[in-house]
């Protein structure tokens, strides 16, 4: 365990930075999607439309916070907080830079997997508690999608774990001094990327809230700050996903010239932009296609990758 980590200023700084960036991403995503679709996007409020975030926030705070009379009240209220809490709690193990971070946990990678598997309760319970058929369908889709893709996610990163020989995210970064793991683990990277998009329920794999079919899926009945929780929680999850991808496959804080923290933020930022780009660029598959693709292609490919990596990583003799 590292003594430099986990001091109060560190924790407060990381928490505030993550939430601020997540809020800013609302604007970034809208502007970028507009740019890629030959539109202007929100550009009226403040310079470049930057104050749009503030305007959105004020609007959300003052909206009526309505709980439908037919809803299961306690669960309806708890559900939006779960996605937010699990995503923020997962940041505890992210290795931002040497000496910057919250804890140094031997099983950091497993801790991330555990929290990402808990985050599905948010969607499932929201779908259940809303007592609305569209919400319920969204919740069912979320449960099936997440439980399946969690399996592929776990299998795809075991190659990295074998090469690094540890679940500790800091040691995984250090193990990439000789070269990023995306090169030897390219198949694992592709599977992990698809799985993490499905796991965070982002477009194009946002089937639990597919607007054209399910109104707004699991959050149909949510409004005001509760909807805001889901909304910002999604952006926190995006930052988390790209931070994990950077840590596992792109060498984390490693890089020449710039300080380590700058490298980490730069790489994570590119990851976030990539997440937004695929939402704008790719069509949403049908639900059965998503499940069939997972179990018939990703699972065998992941297992094959695991076997080959194991055979190559095995010490000779």
């Amino acid at each position, binding site marked *: 365990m590292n003594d430099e980590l986990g001091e109060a200023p560190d924790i407060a700084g990381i928490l505030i930075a993550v939430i601020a960036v997540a809020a800013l991403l609302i604007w970034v995503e809208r502007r970028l999607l507009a740019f890629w679709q030959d539109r202007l996007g929100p550009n009226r409020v403040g310079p470049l439309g930057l104050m749009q975030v503030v305007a959105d926030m004020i609007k959300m705070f003052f909206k009526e916070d309505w709980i439908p009379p037919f809803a299961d009240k306690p669960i309806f209220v708890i559900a939006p907080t779960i996605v937010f809490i699990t995503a923020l709690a997962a940041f505890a193990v992210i290795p931002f830079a040497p000496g910057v971070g919250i804890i140094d946990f031997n*099983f950091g990678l*497993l801790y991330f*997997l*555990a929290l990402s598997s808990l985050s599905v*309760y948010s969607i499932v319970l929201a*779908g259940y508690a809303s007592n609305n058929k569209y919400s319920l369908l969204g919740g069912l889709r979320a*449960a099936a999608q997440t*439980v399946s893709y969690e399996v592929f996610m776990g299998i795809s990163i075991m190659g990295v774990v074998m090469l690094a020989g540890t679940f500790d995210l800091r040691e995984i970064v250090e193990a990439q001094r000789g070269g990023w793991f995306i090169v030897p683990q390219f198949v694992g990277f592709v599977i992990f990327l698809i799985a993490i998009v499905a796991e965070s329920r982002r477009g194009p794999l946002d089937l639990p809230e597919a607007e054209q079919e399910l109104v707004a899926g699991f959050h149909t009945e949510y409004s005001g700050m509760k909807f805001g929780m889901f909304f910002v929680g999604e952006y926190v999850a995006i930052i988390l996903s790209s931070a994990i991808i950077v840590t596992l496959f792109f060498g984390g804080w490693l890089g020449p010239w710039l300080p380590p923290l700058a490298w980490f933020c730069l790489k994570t930022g590119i990851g976030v932009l990539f997440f937004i780009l695929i939402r704008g660029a790719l069509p949403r598959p049908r639900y059965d296609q998503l499940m069939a693709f997972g179990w018939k292609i990703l699972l065998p490919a992941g297992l094959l990758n695991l076997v080959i990596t194991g055979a190559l990583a095995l010490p000779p003799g």
Partner: protein
Amino acid sequence: MALILFYLTSAVAVFATVMMLTRLNAVHGLLYLILSLLAVGVIFFLMGAYFAAVLEVIIYAGAIMVLFVFVIMMLNQGQTTTAQERVWLEPGIWLGPSFLALILLVELVVIIAHGGHIETGQVVSAKQVGIALFGPYLIAVELASILLLAGLVGAYHLGRPIPKTLPPESRP
């Protein structure tokens, strides 16, 4: 400090389990069960078994319980089941199980009162269990896996696509 945390977490686990048993709404019961599993995860963590703690959360709370919630949501039982449960879980039902559980509790208290030195069989470690399972009892492990495979094949059979060439009335 660790001792206080341990007892606090254990209290949460026991309380959550009792709440899980007595809830009439199935989803509320499941939520308490998830809480109980998370508390057990924290207990493992406090004992230094980090790996077991994380696996507890990933496998039990994160995967198996999601499937439970999934099935209960798919059945989508409403107020009628709550009423039915209320009839089933009337106070008299608790008498038998509570009495039997009380006997076990008394046994446990007696063992603890003797300082845990009641004459029991030899203590078996996890490694010995593994060696026994994959040594002399290999055939039992194989039989169990055949049973699981049969379940898998059965599920696959039920979920197979219906051939389009069959006339509609003979389709299953």
